[in-house]
């Protein structure tokens, strides 16, 4: 049994059959973390009760209490999801000592399926960034090339899966934060339809856009995880009841006869040639499998980033006003008065990117600018949704790149925020429209860095996205490639 190449579902099946115990699986993951994490810095916190939890889970599997196909499988959680008693830092000094007294619903659900959480995964501070470099705890490295970023903000989640430190991870996606790191690290990740996974216990960044989802080795694993966490929750008032994801339907999905649209505007200036060619090759592969692929125009693409950064920054400035140095979070010593307490707690607790987005958000919401910016962005959002609605009248799926480039070198974009924002061009629209979309490994560039294709579906069509991704993964092996040098340290 080669645990290094096993998927979560394969490991889950082996545990159920008694071929390996949940405890042995957890011991394996602990060894992987010990071997690789000093090199890639995926984890902010490794839990100290992993083996006890694995023992308990094994007992409950043995008596037939845990029946999920994922029961006993070791996994990781992005450090912006609350877990009772476990440090939840959000990659920020502000929450560096925060131990929640409750657990996020998505984490609760996956625990009830018998998950064995290994710990909390690194991320850009407050999920604001596309490189995982803005974390207070330092940058995570890309397992394919440790000089490159893993993407972000769920960079720790993507890198941990790619390095084999966990079998799958939960991430969150506000403007591409699951899909872009999945693409950069050669793993499969999906942001489900807005509202289909509870946000209760997810530290808020931009509440109308935030959504939790899985990163895993393949589409089938993503479907299995979504099957456990896509549930309506009375604790989240934007939560919706869905059909969930049907794992069986995903495993038997046929793309024959499906119509796939490719927006020509996703292939304009700024897109790396290797990425473009790789995604086009994937489109031809889907065509060979029986899908019809055609191009269509979507000129609204060029307004996606301005609209996104206005809306996301506005919501961030409002959401992050809760950090006042009083109820929880960072607080400096010897403050003069209440205003000084607020200002110094926030100035010393937040990093530069968070401050920048708070200021941008304050600006677009401030008196005199609200209509020209915030209201205008909400109108653009209406037009973006309308453009996708029209597209889905004609297509079952929309295909394009996830990001304009593969993983950049560490430090390359850190000093140039606008350049970093421009990298989000193909992902932010999906959040504005509330649609589900996945990143699926589809090749490598000439430097040997992974490329992901983005499969976008209509509302609640996660089964179509993951079904098509699974069918593609049956005839390709990009998702099975592993970074060189992982085994011979």
């Amino acid at each position: 049994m080669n645990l290094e190449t096993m998927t979560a579902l394969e490991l889950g099946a082996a545990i159920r059959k008694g071929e390996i115990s949940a405890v042995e699986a957890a011991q394996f993951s602990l060894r992987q973390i010990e071997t690789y994490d000093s090199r890639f810095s995926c984890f902010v916190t490794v839990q100290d009760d992993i083996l006890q939890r694995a023992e308990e889970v094994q007992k409950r599997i043995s008596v037939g209490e845990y029946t999920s196909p994922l029961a006993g499988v070791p996994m990781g959680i992005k450090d912006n999801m609350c877990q009772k008693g476990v440090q939840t830092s959000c990659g920020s000094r502000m929450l560096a000592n925060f131990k929640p007294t409750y657990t996020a619903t998505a984490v609760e659900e996956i625990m009830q399926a018998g998950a064995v959480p290994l710990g909390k995964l690194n991320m850009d501070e407050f999920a604001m960034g596309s490189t995982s470099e803005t974390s207070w705890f330092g940058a995570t490295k890309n397992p394919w090339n440790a000089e490159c970023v893993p993407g972000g903000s769920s960079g720790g989640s993507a890198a941990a899966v790619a390095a084999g430190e966990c079998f799958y991870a939960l991430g969150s996606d506000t403007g591409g934060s699951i899909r872009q790191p999945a693409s950069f690290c050669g793993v499969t990740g999906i942001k489900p339809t807005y509202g289909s996974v509870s946000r209760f216990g997810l530290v808020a960044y931009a509440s109308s856009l935030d959504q939790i989802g899985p990163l895993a080795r393949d589409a089938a694993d993503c479907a299995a995880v979504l099957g456990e966490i896509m549930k309506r929750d009375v604790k989240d008032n934007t939560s919706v009841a869905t059909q969930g994801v049907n794992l069986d339907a995903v495993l038997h999905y046929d793309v024959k006869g499906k119509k796939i649209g490719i927006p020509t505007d996703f292939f304009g200036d700024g897109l790396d040639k290797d990425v473009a060619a790789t995604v086009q090759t994937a489109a031809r592969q889907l065509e060979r499998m029986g899908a019809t692929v055609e191009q269509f125009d979507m000129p609204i693409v060029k307004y996606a980033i301005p609209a996104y950064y206005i809306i996301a920054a506005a919501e961030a400035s409002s959401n992050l006003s809760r950090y006042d140095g009083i109820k929880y979070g960072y607080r400096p010593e010897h403050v003069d008065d209440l205003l000084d307490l607020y200002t110094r707690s926030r100035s010393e607790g937040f990093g530069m990117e968070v401050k920048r987005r708070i200021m941008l958000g304050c600006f677009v919401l401030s008196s005199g600018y609200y209509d020209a910016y915030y209201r205008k962005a909400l109108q653009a959002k209406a037009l973006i949704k309308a453009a996708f609605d029209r597209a889905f009248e004609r297509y079952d799926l929309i295909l394009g790149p996830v990001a304009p480039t593969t993983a950049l070198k560490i430090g390359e974009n850190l000093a140039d925020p606008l350049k970093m924002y421009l990298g989000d061009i193909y992902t932010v629209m999906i959040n504005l429209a509330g649609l589900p979309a996945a990143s699926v490994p589809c090749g490598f560039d000439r430097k040997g860095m992974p490329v992901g294709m983005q499969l976008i579906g209509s509302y609640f069509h996660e089964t179509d996205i993951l079904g098509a991704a699974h069918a593609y993964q049956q005839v390709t092996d990009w998702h099975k490639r592993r970074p060189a040098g992982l085994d011979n340290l």
Partner: protein
Amino acid sequence: MMITDELVTYLEALGRIRLPEESRAKAQRDLQEILQYIDTLSELDTEGIEPLSHALPLTNVMREDEVQPSIPPEEVLANAPVRKDNYFLVPRSFE
């Protein structure tokens, strides 16, 4: 739209943050650049378009109005940086 030094100071005040002195000039330039890019949105014709706050027709999820135990004070205060008895401690805010 010009990001002036005064506007930076105003935004700091609104956000209750203070930029480190050495990064103020760069922050101002960055904000200017970002805003200039964001301003391309003004080209988009949005005449007569209703602003959209949520893409999906969501309805509020309501809980039954049942009496349930509230969070115990120990848990509420567990992460307080400074507390006194069952209170969050703050500096004196008025004389």
